[in-house]
């Protein structure tokens, strides 16, 4: 039985971060579309569709919706690094090192989450500069916990896909279904209750729906509406705790699956 240790994680984390920094497209490409959306497209739309006096609320709403796009896109881009590692990089060297294979996934995951956190911060700052107004107070922890758990879950899904799909082409082909389609169903630009009745049930089980409701609860003053659309309860804190538990549950299941698949792939 392989010992389950994480002593190599700092070295693996540093390696992945260095590789990402040396590959600027990994940092910039996922950021381009969301920032463009939050900084240019959203203000333009606001001038047409936001009610008088509601521009700021609209800009804030769209900025957080954009974070719900940025996190999946960035983690999916990070997953490509796993395929590059396998095909042209040092993955085989890592597989014969005296380290647990779970630590390889963990190192990659921590780097992806760090980069995602940086990008979300850039997005929030850019949106605020263009007119969004975020509430920073006691509920900020809900925002951070949600962003973290959702990033972990999405990277674990990316790692799973990278280890199951044979080529970068197949991986890229699967990204829209995993990273973009849920975005339209998860209450990003409109409440989930405005979807057809049967789609609401689907929306309520999507991890993005819960994560996004928490992002809004953490950074906006009236952010409990999205949570209420999921749970229909009265206590915002209870609903937030439930949604966080759901998001964390998804993250744990996906991470365990990613580690098991990687370990299995590492031995023929």
């Amino acid at each position, binding site marked *: 039985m*392989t010992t389950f240790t994480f002593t190599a994680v700092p*070295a693996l984390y540093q*390696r992945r971060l260095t*590789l990402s920094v040396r590959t600027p497209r990994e940092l910039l490409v996922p950021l381009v579309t969301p920032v463009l959306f939050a900084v240019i497209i959203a203000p333009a739309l606001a001038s047409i569709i936001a009610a008088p006096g509601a521009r700021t609320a609209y800009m804030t709403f769209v900025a957080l919706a954009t974070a719900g796009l940025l996190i999946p896109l960035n983690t999916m881009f990070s997953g490509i690094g796993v395929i590059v590692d396998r095909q042209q*990089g040092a993955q085989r*060297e890592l597989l014969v090192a*005296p*380290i647990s294979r779970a630590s390889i996934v963990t190192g990659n995951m921590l780097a992806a989450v760090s980069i995602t956190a940086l990008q979300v911060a850039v997005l929030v700052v850019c949106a605020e500069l263009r007119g969004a107004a975020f509430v920073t107070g006691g509920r900020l922890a809900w925002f951070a916990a949600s962003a973290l758990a959702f990033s972990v879950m999405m990277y674990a899904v990316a790692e799973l896909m990278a280890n199951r799909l044979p080529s970068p082409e197949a991986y890229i082909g699967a990204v829209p279904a995993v990273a973009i389609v849920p975005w339209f169903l998860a209450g990003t630009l409109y409440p989930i209750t405005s979807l057809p009745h049967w789609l609401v049930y689907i929306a309520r089980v999507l991890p993005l729906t819960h994560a996004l409701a928490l992002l809004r609860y953490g950074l906006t003053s009236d952010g409990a509406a999205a949570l209420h659309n999921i749970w229909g309860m009265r206590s915002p804190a209870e609903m937030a705790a439930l949604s966080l538990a759901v998001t964390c549950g998804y993250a744990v299941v996906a991470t365990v699956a990613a580690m098991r698949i990687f370990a299995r792939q590492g031995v*023929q």
Partner: protein
Amino acid sequence: MAINVTEAHPAARPAPGPEHGMIVAEELVKTYPGGVHAVRGISFSVAAGESFGLLGPNGAGKSTTIGMLNTTIRPTSGRALLAGHDVQADPMGARRVSSVVFQDPVLDRPLTGRQNLQLHLRLWRVPKEDGLARLAGLTAAVGLACLLDRPVATYSGGQRRRLEIVRALLSAPRVLFLDEPTAGLDTRVRHDLFDTITALRERTGVTVLLTTHYLDEAERLCDRLAIIEGGLIVACDTPARLLASLGDAVLELRTGGEPAAALAALRGRGIGGDGAVVIGGTITIPLHGMPPSRAVELVHALDLPVRALATRVPTLDDVYLRLTGNRISPG
């Protein structure tokens, strides 16, 4: 390339513990899904400090054997030990005492050579001071010191291979796996690497298991060789003894007629009684002490349809042909 051999290496210490050898393989079998029998029951033992080669053509089972020993391929049955660590029961222990140079480059190309080496030191948990001293000594020995801060993507094929060999030795492994270490490199670089590997082996005392399908590589780098074919070891001995099994000379005859008839005629004159091999229209015959000039006279006397006739010293290719009926490499 000239290499200074000055510093004693920790791996030069004798290994404690291994029952029968530094590398022990006992009846290793690997059958892939779909019933592909890559390795059919291989056993061998490699002593501490020895260099042991697995020689065979592509698909013979060499890389699968190395994969089972370095824990990346799970044996279907059998047992293997590295410095006393069972590769299945204690894979972490087995990985801790070994390093691998893979057939294809396995490096982070965007990173510098130094960053690739430092990662290895951290993963194998080499104490920092020892690691940095070893890094400086080994990279200087193979002429890479001045390239270390360049991205690996800018290295030539030979430089990358040397970097990988140095990397593998940084953790002072007791066992070093070299999986076709010169495959795909040009002749001059290959000969440079022979010198590099030989000098580093002398310097470190590491036990080497090498796979190759190049005969010159096997002769230059291996103390003992196992010839592997169809997942089985068909012969195992020192290169000198394997060659001696064919005597001092072989006769090679290319006939324009029926080779079987020609061989029968030769046997009638006392040539080719033991170990003759026919591949296409070429007959190779160990002379087993008969003077080459006498053998040539006898062939001419038979009035065979001869297109080419020569005598020469035997090569490992002849040994391989005799054992398997296949030609191992073109050159």
